[in-house]
Every structure is written in C-alpha cells, then in structure tokens.
C-alpha cells in the first residue's frame, strides 16, 4: 500500500470521528454559514423594528422659554411630542446649565427639556436630556429635527429680505452630475476592493479559530484517550500520521472558512446587490489567491498541530493555542490599515502578514511580481519550517507517555 493511501485513511477516519459529534456540525457548519447573514440581514431588520417602535412613541418635552413662537411649538407637537410650557428659570449661567431640572430628567418626569431665548437677532437654545435613556435621546432628536428645519426657514427668510437668492447663497459650490459616474473603477473592481477588506479578515480569523479544536483533539486529545499507542504500532510512519491529521484539520477548517465566506457573500449581495458586482479577477490572480490561502492554512495548522502535540495535556494545549489565536488577530488588523498604493516591500517579508497583504492585493487584481515573489519565497520557507517543527514533535518518543 502506498503512503498516500495511508494518509487518506488517517484523514478520513479523523474527519468521520469529528463530524459524528453534533456540536461540531453546529460550530463548523451552522455558525459560519449563518453568522454573516444574521449580522447583515437579521440584525438590520431588528434594528429597524426597534427604531420604528421608538418612532411611534409619544415623548414628553418641557419647553422653558419666555418668547418661543407658537408655530414652533406646533411643529414640535406634530412630531408625536407632548409639550408642557413654562417660564425660563432664573439664575442660569448658560442655557445648558441643568440647574434644578436634573432630577426631572433623571426620574423620567420629562424626556427632554428645551430652553430657548432670543438675544437681539439670535436665538439661543439648549436641549437637556438623559443620554442613557433611549426615549430621552429620541425626544432630543425630534426637537433637533424641528429646530434644524425652523432654522433653515428663518435663514431663507432673512436672505430673501436682504434681496439675495436663497439657493445660490446657501450652496455657492456644488457637484455637477452623479458622484457614482465620476468613479472610473468598474463595479467588479469596487467589489474586489470591498471583498479585500472582508475576505482576508474572515479567512485569517476563522482559520486561526476553527483549527484549534481539531488540532488539539487529534494530537494531545488522542494521547489522553490512550489511542495513540496502538496507532504508532501500525505500519504507518509518523510523517504519514502527521500528514493525515494535517489533511483532516485542513479539510475541516476549509469547510468552515468556505461556508463563512459563502455566508458573507450572501449577506453582501443581499445588502448591496444594486451597486456590487462579481469581482473581476484574472486567472493568475485566482491561482495566486489559492496559493496564498494554501500557504496560510499550512502554516497555521502545522504550527497548531506541533504545539498541541508538544503539550502535556488537552488543558495545556488549550492554554497555549488560545493566546496564539488571539495573537493572530494582530497581523490581520495590521493588514487592514496598510495603504496598498504605497506599501513598503518589507511588509511582504513578514510571515502571516505577507500572505494576508498578498490576498488583499490579489482581490484588487493587482499582481505585482516583486511582491508576489517575496511573499511566496518567505511563506515557502515558513511552511517548510512549521512542517519540520511539527514533524519533529510527532517524532518525539515521549508523545505516548507524556502525562498531565
């Protein structure tokens, strides 16, 4: 029997065993598949419903002013606002000074207090509110909407009375035509730009997090369950064992990442189908994308398998791999902020960061030969080193005897 067949037998068994746990299906299939649609579709729907519910509520506003116009009060009341009017309190430093009215807001007697005062030709106002109350924020927002409109009307009246044209005075500089038409990037390129922000992020985070559990389970977990010794007495080299397990973790992680990216694309298509198209990528860019993903998966999973196998117990492996997973977020965040138009070459020499940057460039269909050469070379070396390190751990004689 050839080596490849033995590797596949190991991988198949690992996958079957892993999939038979229903919790795995939830963690690896349902959550990644539903996460982004829930975030992009269900979440905005819930938000809209909540906002509509709040919009229908009548809020109670106290107006403190000696000279407010009745037309303005009527405008405010038209926004489902119940008003009570009283005189302006005395001895206020400014209108924003809440003075003795703090408690009226805190005990929810009123949702907001509007104070208005005219000094010469200028109206001064303040809206007192409780920022920790949704209803108070809503009351403030409704008053502001009315005041902005009222201010615009007042401004227009004053411009007209001065004999000027209102439109040209208020908007002396303006865009001509459609802003969208002025962007020379195609819809496909714009889609690539948007996806270059999401896909490396999802790929890196999900690979780093989804690989933890199977890596631990198939190495130190196997040792703790006592199944490793019988496996090592079979006609199977340790390298074949490592590759079989690596293939299983890669397959499991790849399913999770693919499903999550599918969910992400579905969510984006649902939200932005009018202005988003399929990213326009060349065949070479697609091939290089696949290579970058393969590099990233190989490095992360080989490293995880090595560290998990090195650990004395499942508990120790968990406490080693969890901070490493969190640390993986650093390069991911870094790559999101690097300006690709002016990116320095050294970034492509930093392991993990380089592959994610490469992914971003490729999703924009930018194939810069020098960049590609550097990240391919560096990643190949790192892949070789991580696999070698993993092989070293699998070849340790004490892997069956190390105990917690």
């Amino acid at each position, binding site marked *: 029997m050839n080596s490849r067949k033995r590797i596949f*037998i190991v991988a198949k068994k690992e996958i079957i065993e892993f999939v038979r746990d229903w919790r795995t299906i939830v963690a690896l299939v349902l959550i990644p598949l539903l996460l982004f649609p829930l975030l992009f579709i269900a979440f905005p729907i819930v938000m809209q419903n909540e906002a509509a519910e709040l919009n229908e509520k009548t809020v109670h506003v106290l107006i403190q002013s000696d000279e407010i116009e009745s037309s303005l009060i009527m405008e405010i009341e038209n926004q489902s606002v119940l008003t009570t009017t009283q005189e302006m309190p005395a001895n206020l430093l400014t209108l924003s000074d809440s003075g003795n009215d703090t408690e009226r807001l805190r005990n929810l007697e009123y949702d907001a207090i509007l104070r208005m005062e005219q000094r010469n030709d200028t109206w001064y106002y303040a809206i007192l509110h409780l920022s920790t109350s949704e209803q108070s924020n809503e009351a403030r927002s409704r008053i502001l909407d009315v005041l902005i409109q009222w201010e615009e009307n007042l401004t227009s009246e004053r411009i007209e009375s001065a004999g000027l044209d209102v439109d040209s005075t208020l908007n002396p500089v303006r865009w001509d035509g459609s802003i969208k038409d002025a962007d020379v990037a195609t819809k496909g390129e714009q889609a690539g730009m948007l996806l270059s922000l999401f896909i490396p992020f999802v790929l890196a985070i999900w690979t780093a997090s989804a690989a933890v559990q199977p890596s631990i389970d198939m190495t130190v977990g196997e040792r703790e369950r006592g199944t490793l*010794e*019988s496996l090592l007495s079979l006609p199977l080299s340790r390298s074949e064992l490592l590759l079989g397990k690596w293939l299983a973790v890669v397959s499991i992680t790849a399913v999770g990442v693919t499903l999550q990216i599918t969910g992400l694309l579905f969510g984006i298509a649902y939200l932005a189908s009018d202005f988003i198209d399929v990213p326009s990528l060349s065949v070479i860019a697609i091939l290089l994308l696949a290579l970058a993903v393969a590099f990233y998966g190989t490095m992360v999973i080989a490293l995880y398998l090595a560290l998990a196998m090195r650990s004395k117990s499942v508990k120790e492996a968990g406490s080693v791999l969890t901070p490493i997973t969190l640390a993986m977020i650093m390069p991911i965040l870094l790559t999101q902020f690097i300006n690709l138009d002016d990116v320095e070459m050294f970034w492509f020499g930093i392991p993990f960061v380089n592959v994610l940057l490469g992914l971003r460039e490729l999703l924009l269909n930018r194939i810069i030969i020098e960049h590609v050469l550097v990240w391919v070379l560096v990643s190949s070396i790192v892949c070789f080193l991580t696999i070698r390190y993993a092989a070293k751990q699998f070849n340790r004689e004490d892997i069956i*005897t190390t*105990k917690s």
Partner: protein
Amino acid sequence: MQPLLSLKNVKKSFGDVQAIEYVNLNIYKNSVIGLVGGNGAGKTTLLRLMSGVYRPTEGSVNLENNRPVTEMRSVLGVVPESTGLYSKLTAWENIRYHSRLHGIDDQLAWNRTYRFAKLLDIDGSLHRYTEGFSRGMKQKTALLRALAHGPQILLLDEPTGGLDVTSARTVRKLVMKLKDEGGTVVYSTHHLAEAQQVCDRIIIVHNGIIQADGTPDELLELTQTSTLEEAYVSLTKETARPRMEETEKPSKISAIWRRLFTPSSSLEVNEDE
C-alpha cells in the same frame, strides 16, 4: 531454531533513567511468553520496544528475517494496556481502520474478525459504538483489532487488567486457542497464577533487567522454591523503582513557576500530644 523476534543487547533509557538494561531475548514461533513483573518493572517498555513504538537506545530489535521491527510492523498485532479505541467509531470501524492501515482487504478482515468475535461472544456488538462498552468489551474489541490482519506475533499488555472473572477467562481461552493454531503471543501481566495458566515460558522482569527466563518448572528449580510466588519473591528482592512516567521532570521554567506557588509547610509534629 530461528527466532521470530529477537532483542539483542537492548538498552533503553529516558534521559538519565535506565528503563531497560541490556536485554537479550528470543521469541520463538508457537509459544505464549509471559512477561511478569511489578509496576515499573519495564514490561510495557519491553513491549513497546518489541512493537517498534520505542527505538532502543542501544542494541537492536529484529524480526525473523533480520529486518528491524519498524519496517515490518504488519507481522505484529498489538493490544496496549489502554486498549486505544475510538469512542465515536463502531467496534468494526475501529477494527477496519487498523486493518486498512495494515493494507488488508475489508472482506478478509471482516471474515477474521467475525470468526474471533464469535469466540469472544462479541459478534452481536460489532456495529455498536464503543462509547458505551464495558472494560471487557473494549478489551475484546482491541484483541479483534490486533488479530484482524493475521499477525504472526501478538503483543498483549496486561490484557486481563480490570476485567471481570468471565471476561478474563474468555481472553485467556482465546490466547490458548491462538497457541493451538500455531500462533505466538507475548503476554504481560503481574498475576503469576495467570502466567502459569496461560504461558509456557515466563520471563521475570525487575527494575528493567530480566531476572529469569524459563518454563515454570525451570524457574522453581532455579530458585529452589516450591511455588512460583516464592520464586518470584526470591528473584525480585531488590526494591522496585517507581514507574518511568512518574520520573519525568517538569521543564525548568515550569519547576520554578510551581515553586513560586507551593507554600512551604509550617506544620510540625508535636511530640507531647
């Protein structure tokens, strides 16, 4: 006669600890050999050396054709002490996994498995997940797994440990049957009575050294005693060392860290009370 498996000047050490010291041992065809010794004697280490899980620090472990055991593992069937079954696989799937890695056709492996499963009275449970199996069922499944590819030598590490009387008896009967069919079994145990009942040759291991090797009668003659228990005691007078695994040292950083969080005991014995 050419031995099936031979250990020549085999020494095994883990760091500073000598687990096995210069062992010479030949395993011949159609015999049941009992490795008898207390905890930490070196029985499991010897079995792991025979199965190729451990590489000898010095010496060699070779098969009949003088090839290293690591190159010919298919001639061996191994049942470790822990049985090593996957709980989310059925008994048959566990067996098939190993037989496939041995390169054996599924049908052939099934025929062998079913035949022995009937003898062990486990044929009705082959398609059940091993998760709910008793210790005895697990041990029997592990035996079937080790036999499915038709090994020349069966290595059993305490196969009756933790089993009830009936299960232990069934396992022993299977070992005897294998011998009757021309098989070779190496059987580690710390029960002398069991070794006497099953094995035609007993090897007494103590502190990593083979203290005696022979038939029960030869051991009695060697020690001038009347029972095997007396023979064993006279051969293993030296205090037993702790198990190898227990002698493992934590890393330097771990040792310092642990010391920081280990309060020194302030309790003293009060002689007056």
